[in-house]
């Protein structure tokens, strides 16, 4: 237990901040994922075959390729791509992108593919009559979407979004390969310097379980809130 004390002798405070980092990356990635799904869900539902194709390629490719590979591509390919763009503008110094930004962007793109599928499914399972009724009543498109379809869709989407949240949270452990100090990286450092990997990795597992457990409690509340009347 000495290993977990706060201050200079133990790893308690480091692991605490690492946990906060994991939560921060997960939330950022989830939000980036939502932005992606706001873009791609309408494309998936549109009648245009070309737009459909773009959205389907996005979700199929991202969900069919290992997360680790996407992260590697972003981390190793990302700085190269940016440096290439910079070289066009006459800047030839080495550019290193922040690990937090690359990490959450990579996880966000992965998370976005999953949440796009969730939103698509949820919108499609809203009763067709609701859409027709709105049209008959002459509502403007964005108004009926926000006021009528969204609340019904969210009720259906939240249970699946909680799965997406879990996937996203667990995926953040993979950004440890890029050097961002989150739970996994911090445990790796601690395990290396104390030669006690069993303890630190098990403790990392406990930390992840705690985060999932607490976030599930919060999501359950949301679920109850959005299923009022059902």
């Amino acid at each position: 237990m000495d290993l977990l004390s706060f201050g200079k002798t133990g790893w308690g405070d480091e692991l605490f901040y690492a946990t906060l980092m994991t939560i921060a990356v997960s939330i950022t990635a989830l939000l980036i994922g939502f932005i992606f799904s706001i873009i791609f869900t309408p494309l998936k539902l549109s009648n245009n075959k070309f737009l459909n194709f773009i959205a389907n390629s996005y979700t199929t490719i991202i969900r069919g390729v290992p997360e680790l590979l996407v992260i590697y591509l972003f981390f190793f390919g990302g700085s190269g791509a940016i440096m290439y763009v910079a070289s066009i503008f006459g800047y030839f110094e080495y550019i290193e992108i922040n690990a937090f930004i690359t990490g959450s962007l990579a996880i966000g793109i992965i998370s976005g593919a999953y949440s796009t599928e969730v939103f698509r499914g949820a919108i499609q399972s809203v009763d067709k009559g609701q859409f027709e009724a709105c049209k008959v009543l002459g509502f403007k498109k964005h108004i009926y979407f926000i006021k009528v379809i969204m609340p019904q869709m969210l009720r259906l989407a939240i249970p699946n979004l909680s799965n997406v949240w879990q996937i996203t949270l667990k995926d953040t452990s993979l950004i440890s390969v890029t050097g961002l100090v989150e739970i996994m990286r911090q445990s790796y450092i601690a395990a290396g310097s104390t030669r006690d990997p069993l303890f630190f990795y098990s403790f990392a597992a406990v930390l992840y379980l705690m985060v999932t457990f607490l976030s599930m409690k919060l999501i359950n509340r949301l679920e109850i809130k959005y299923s009022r009347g059902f």
Partner: protein
Amino acid sequence: MDLSLMAVSLPKLLSAAVVTLKLLSLSLFFGLIIGLIFAILRLNKNPIINKFAYGYSYVFRGTPLLVQIFIIYFGLGQIEYFRSTFLWVVFKEPYWCAIIAFALNTGAYTSEILRSAFETIKPGIIEAGKSLGIPSKIIFYKIQIPVAIRQSLPAYGNEIILMMKGTSLASTVTLMDITGVAKHIVSTTYKPLEIFLMAGGIYLFMTFIIHNLIKYLEKKYSFN
């Protein structure tokens, strides 16, 4: 795009795909056995057995696969006593450590899939068996298990694809699967875009094959 480099590294990546497929099939095999055992334990009425099986699936589904591999590969070797047992022959190899971690992980998901399949079996099927005088053990093995397996095919197909993607983590414990080889080539040539895109293409192709295989099986064993 460096096309000649891509042509040179394609055979290397394809031979690494064999490693990935071996890892996948072995872990799915052991994972299915573990999953079936734990699904049956979950249906047990004894609360201690029941809770134990639930705890297993909760822990393995709630923690990242990377942590599980690291605990098994780096962690277990630390216990002195463990190193003197015959199990050490298996656990000192990163290959078997990865397979054990994958099997335990996919076993947890599989047990959940099978459990929900067992629970959604129509009671009429079991009642029909009983009224025909079939012993309950045979009802379980010859009726419930096959029906449950058929019902869980779509979800299990997803799990196979998730596991295939999970095998890429084997590269973190020095195994040379597709991701491992890709990373090795990138570290010597520094052409991340070409190599990682190609590796991604191979994974995508494998996903495509698995997806269609499951679809075919679903059709073949459909109830209609």
